[in-house]
């Protein structure tokens, strides 16, 4: 139901930016074509939008040129204040997203994971809460879960909604704690099998190595073993009642004394899990690990040590407040002057649709493309998540060319590039996609290409459009 407040908000957005797909694929006005000082300002806006969103939609370029990057950031950091009619409307039709455990078991894992991927794609393409979606993607990599393991497909429905989305802009401690108790993670990294007397180290190791301290974070193999004991007893309920819910069983919890990271956990202490996570999250290595990873995502593959240290400090000062950490990054000089960063495949595909005002149902056709591109959400088997950094991805450009070609030829089911509203010349197309005038050699490269249906796919294959 659209209530009154939503409706008013909607009307505001509609006049400010337009809602229809057509208006999103208009050659940009002041944002792109201005020269000199204004041109540099426009480039700065494009750059910021490229990093803070899944790619600038044309209307957004103009709007943010007006209000400024800082105002945009503040707006994005308050996602509830952004009316998100279009994304909400598209996603609302996916009923399985609202399911809890054990209701999820009424559906097959294939149905559920297809739905969850569809929602992920639709939100990335259509949501106006772009930074929130960018961070959801970041956390889904940081706390990667593979849908094919056990009943993770079922449990991911709840995990994505109640763990990741619930805490994506919150405190890092709350996020890690929620992840550690999440049935999807308990299944994926075998935490549910970790019981007193028979510890299973899988989750404990990744908690320290990937989720918190980082590989060089100064913990030992002995810490991993002790941490595993502190995490014992967290099970996932089976059987008819409450299947798929977390279930702490005190008699399977090892509450004898342990020493982790030099701290003694006394025999009989309650809340070993919370205490362990407290210890790990407040460890200086964790702030540096998270700062480095976030700077790599938002600034560049090799972020300068200075900014990483500043962001790590902010992480510690604010007790891991994710929004404060993001502010620190975006306000940094390094963010402002960051060079081009190679898009990961998911971002590439989504940015194509956003830049062209394209449409997708996020369904099987688009998901098959993401698989070929190499980054289908929830399809990463190993707990490190899809890699970041150009070295991993740049050998894999052919699937991008094929995505662009298929999209513009109408070859991706229920997905289109909105060709009819596309610019009709190479000059206008490159100006639109890259924010700069065409170069001489490009004029001759595009010379044989006269139809929109030929110009657009080639422009989407342009090396510069592979970067953001």
């Amino acid at each position, binding site marked *: 139901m659209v209530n009154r407040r939503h409706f008013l908000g909607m009307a505001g957005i509609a006049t400010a930016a337009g809602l229809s797909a057509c208006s999103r694929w208009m050659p940009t006005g002041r944002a792109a074509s201005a020269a000199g000082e204004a041109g540099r300002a426009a480039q700065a806006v494009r750059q910021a939008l490229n990093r803070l969103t899944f790619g600038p939609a044309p209307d957004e370029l103009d709007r943010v040129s007006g209000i400024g990057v800082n105002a945009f950031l503040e707006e994005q950091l308050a996602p509830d204040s952004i009316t998100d009619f279009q994304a909400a409307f598209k996603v609302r039709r996916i009923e399985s997203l609202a399911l809890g455990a054990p209701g999820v078991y009424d559906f097959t894992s294939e149905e559920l994971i297809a739905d969850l991927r569809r929602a992920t794609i639709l939100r990335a393409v259509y949501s106006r809460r772009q930074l929130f979606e960018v961070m959801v993607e970041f956390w889904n990599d940081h706390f990667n879960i593979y849908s094919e393991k056990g009943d993770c497909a079922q449990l991911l429905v709840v995990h994505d909604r109640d763990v990741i989305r619930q805490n994506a802009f919150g405190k890092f401690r709350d996020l890690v704690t929620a992840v550690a108790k999440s049935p999807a993670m308990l299944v994926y990294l075998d935490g549910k099998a970790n019981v007193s007397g028979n510890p299973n180290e899988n989750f404990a190791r990744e908690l320290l190595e990937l989720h918190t301290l980082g*590989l060089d974070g100064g913990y030992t193999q002995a810490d*991993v073993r002790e941490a595993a004991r502190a995490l014992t007893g967290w099970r996932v309920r089976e059987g008819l009642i409450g299947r798929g819910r977390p279930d702490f069983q005190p008699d399977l919890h090892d509450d004898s004394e342990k020493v982790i990271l030099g701290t003694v956990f006394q025999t009989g202490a309650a809340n070993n899990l919370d205490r362990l996570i407290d210890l790990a999250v407040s460890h200086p290595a964790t702030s540096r690990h998270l700062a480095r990873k976030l700077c790599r995502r938002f600034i560049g593959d090799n972020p300068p040590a200075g900014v990483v240290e500043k962001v790590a400090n902010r992480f510690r000062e604010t007790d891991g407040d994710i929004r404060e950490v993001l502010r620190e990054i975006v306000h940094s000089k390094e963010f402002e002057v960051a060079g081009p960063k190679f898009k990961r495949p998911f971002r590439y595909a989504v940015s194509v649709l956003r830049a062209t005002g394209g449409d997708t149902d996020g369904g099987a056709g688009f998901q098959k493309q993401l698989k070929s591109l*190499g980054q289908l959400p929830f399809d990463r088997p*190993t707990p490190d998540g899809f890699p970041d950094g150009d070295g991993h991805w740049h050998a894999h450009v052919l*699937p991008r060319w094929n995505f662009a070609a*298929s999209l513009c030829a109408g070859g991706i089911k229920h997905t289109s590039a909105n060709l009819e509203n596309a610019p009709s010349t190479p000059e206008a197309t490159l100006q639109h996609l890259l924010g700069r005038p065409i170069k001489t050699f490009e004029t001759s490269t595009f010379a044989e290409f006269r139809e929109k249906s030929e110009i657009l796919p*080639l422009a989407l294959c342009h*090396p510069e459009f592979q970067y953001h």
Partner: protein
Amino acid sequence: MTTHTLLIVNLRGGADGLNMVVPFTEDAYYRARPTLAIPRPGTPGGAVLDLDGRWGLHPALGPLLPLFQNRELALIVAAGRPGSSLSHFEAWDEVESGALGDTLPTTGWAARLLEPSKNESPLRAVAFQDTMPRLLTGVNGAMALRSLDEFKLAVPKPKAPAALRALGGLYHQTELPVGRWGERTLAALAALDDIERAPKNDDGFPKTEFGEQLRGLLRLIRAGITPEIASVELRAWDTHFFQGGLTGHHPNLMRELSEGLITFWAGLGELKGNVTVVVLTEFGRRVAENGSSGTDHGEGSVMFVLGTGVTGGKVHGDWPGLNHLTSFENIPVTTDFRTILAEIASKRFSNVNLSRVFPKFQSSSYLNLIT
């Protein structure tokens, strides 16, 4: 000189070598693995396949037994990456960069192995996966591709030449790093232009990504587009939970591995002499099973070397016995993976500078895996 192909099969996740090549004469094995141990030879209902009275092959690796018997397949126990850091990611960084420690080379050992070669093929090194592994990072002319079948331009034939020309123009002119990758991709597409006409007698591969990778490689080699290094991967060996003894997850992986390899090997026919295969993993599993009928991260595992001229039919390596474990109760690594790779590199490739391929590594004497 015909190009020799070294195929590296990466078992990702830390493969439990102890249940693949089983020391069935040791009681300690059966004590450590009450639910997972593979029964002694001849036990009704499923048992290891006796190799030499001491070692038994898991029955799911049975398809490889003929290769062992005709001495093309060598097995090396207590092998792998020495050390007790049990992070998958750190371990692969070390295995693929061919070094240990905190400051690893950014290039792969295979990349450094190929440095002296004059081969200009755009497919001289191929990783069958979505992302470029560290192993091949630094090779001029390495490609990462998921599937050979998908590696073609999705543009209708009449329009393809113009599209390829235009892409060539754009990627040639850019100063962005992706430029050279675009150019390599175009060169590879040109090289593969008529590979569809290559003989297709390659059925029998597992219908999985791993099977598809091997099938693609076989087609490349049979079409005369011979990579010097190829890398394929079989994932999900991280068996912390109900890994399965005779049947289940771990045996299914072994079956996929053995069926893929035997099909690949048979498909090579006359070309076998040009190919050497190494199977490796980042670490083995703990000797004692854990509380969930799985195994946690360990140290020593098993490696395979397959080829003509290999001293096969033998279980190589210095086996300390299950009563001599590391301080973490793991199988120690008595044969460093680099000792095995260095021997293959020096005997199968030309102008090899081993101190550059494996920096700071003093190989102990070779196992004489290759005559």
